[in-house]
């Protein structure tokens, strides 16, 4: 937060597989990336291209084998409350009710319990679940669970919101609603978002900027790298039909790779 414009800086970050079976193989190689304040960035690519791994590096779950990742000039060494994450499988705490889930991280920010719950209620309202604050997690539908997870991640007011294929487990209708919701929230809060997806359409509808990732050659253990960095400046809400030229561009990038694969 504050005056600095740059939020995340990934400098020549590589990650080498640590397991015994493929020791020494690169998962990510020489990734350079800068993510700017208030920007909505999508990491887009086919499965296995390392986009979730890159998100894990930014979250601080894994340390890069070489290179560095900085947040406001400070190296990222471990997970921290200023970088909260929304997972595909929600990762809610089933022993807590809805509002307690949202208030979980506030324990480390607000001392007074009542204030914590009032603050959490504000974010629950933001995702439209103000009437479900006392529900148990088991009672909720998938879409509602993801709303709680988003409220929980936003309530701690992170400088960076990381989302790992957050709508991948939802049905089409719910996914569309959630995409609209996240744009609405982002327009309001302007939280910097890094959003991982394998859906070109989803990236086109949501992002200011799309980082297209792919593995440069075939084979299951090839490393991922950044193929392109596209800026989408179309106003929101967007219609997919207006974004066809971008889609063609991305498909060509990914298709090139495929034909290259086939040629080998």
């Amino acid at each position: 937060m504050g005056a600095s414009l740059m939020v995340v800086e990934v400098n020549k970050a590589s990650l080498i597989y640590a397991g015994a079976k493929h020791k020494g193989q690169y998962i990510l190689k020489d990734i350079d990336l800068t993510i700017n304040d208030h920007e909505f960035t999508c990491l887009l690519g086919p499965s296995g291209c390392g986009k979730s791994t890159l998100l894990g590096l930014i979250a601080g779950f894994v340390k890069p084998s070489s290179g560095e990742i900085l947040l406001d000039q400070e190296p990222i060494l471990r997970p921290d409350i200023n970088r909260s994450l929304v997972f595909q499988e929600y990762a809610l705490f089933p022993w807590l009710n809805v509002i307690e889930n949202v208030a979980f991280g506030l324990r480390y920010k607000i001392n007074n319990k009542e204030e914590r719950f009032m603050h959490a209620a504000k974010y629950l309202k933001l995702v439209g679940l103000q009437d479900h604050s006392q529900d148990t997690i088991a009672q909720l539908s998938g879409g509602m669970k993801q709303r709680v997870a988003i409220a929980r991640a936003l309530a701690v007011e992170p400088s960076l919101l990381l989302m790992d294929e957050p709508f991948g487990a939802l049905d089409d209708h719910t996914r569309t609603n959630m995409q609209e919701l996240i744009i609405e929230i982002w327009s309001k809060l302007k939280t910097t978002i890094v959003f991982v997806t394998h859906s070109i359409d989803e990236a086109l509808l949501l992002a200011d900027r799309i980082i297209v990732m792919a593995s440069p050659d075939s084979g299951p253990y090839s490393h991922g790298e950044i193929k392109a960095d596209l800026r989408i400046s179309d106003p929101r809400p967007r219609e997919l039909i207006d974004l066809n030229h971008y889609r063609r561009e991305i498909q060509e990038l990914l298709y090139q790779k495929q034909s290259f694969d086939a040629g080998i």
Partner: protein
Amino acid sequence: MLNDLKNRITVAKVGDYKFIRHRYIHRLIYVALLFTIWQTVISLELYPRYLLPSPYDILQTLIYGFSEADYAFAIFESLRRVIIGYLLAVSFGILAGIGIARYNFLDTTIGASLTALQSIPSVAWVPLALLWFGISETAVLFIVILEAFIPCALGVRSGVMNIPREIIRAAQTLGSKHLDLYIRVVFPAIIPQLVTSLRLSWAFAWRALIAGELFVSGIGIGQSLELGRSLADMSQVIAMILIIAALGFISDNLLFRTIEKNVREKWGLV
């Protein structure tokens, strides 16, 4: 339409109630049938009465045992013993289980040996316990603690290891770490598995208790069972077996399974 829905819900409830009533009727008929066969064999006088007492003999033994003799005290003493041993065992078991799951070197050493120890039946420890502690309560406690500790530690270990990685990571990105992470996330996350482990541990403790008590002096259910054998009092032997079964059934089915079911529902596992 609302009325229609209400009706349907009511019908469903009546149906459930009927089903439950049927279940009890079936059980009642089954038990009655067992007693009838038993009583029939008695009236045929195929076996001497001192080897196969009638249901009535056993009822009389039970009434006498609770009103005149020390059955109630024996049950109290056995329960006291098993509860002390059990609580010690599961306290250590929970800590050990978390430790084993946390540190790889503990898993490859202690964790592996627990799996091996688990295959030893509790009676096999009795000679060792008697030589170490004499024919005393300590020997019984030793066996109970040893037997109840193992399933608890192993259950907690696998509970911790099976926590979805995302749950831990979510908590970390929300600011939880170190001991706080264990208290607020790891421990609550394993509660369903913990309750199952506690139930298993209790079953093991209960079996170990009776096995141990058979061989030591003092007062308890196992001792009364062994006394019945040495006096050739078959009524007392069967009465004690019934008491063991009843207490086991009450603790396992009524207490632990109810808790287990409620917890699993709350944790969204059903």
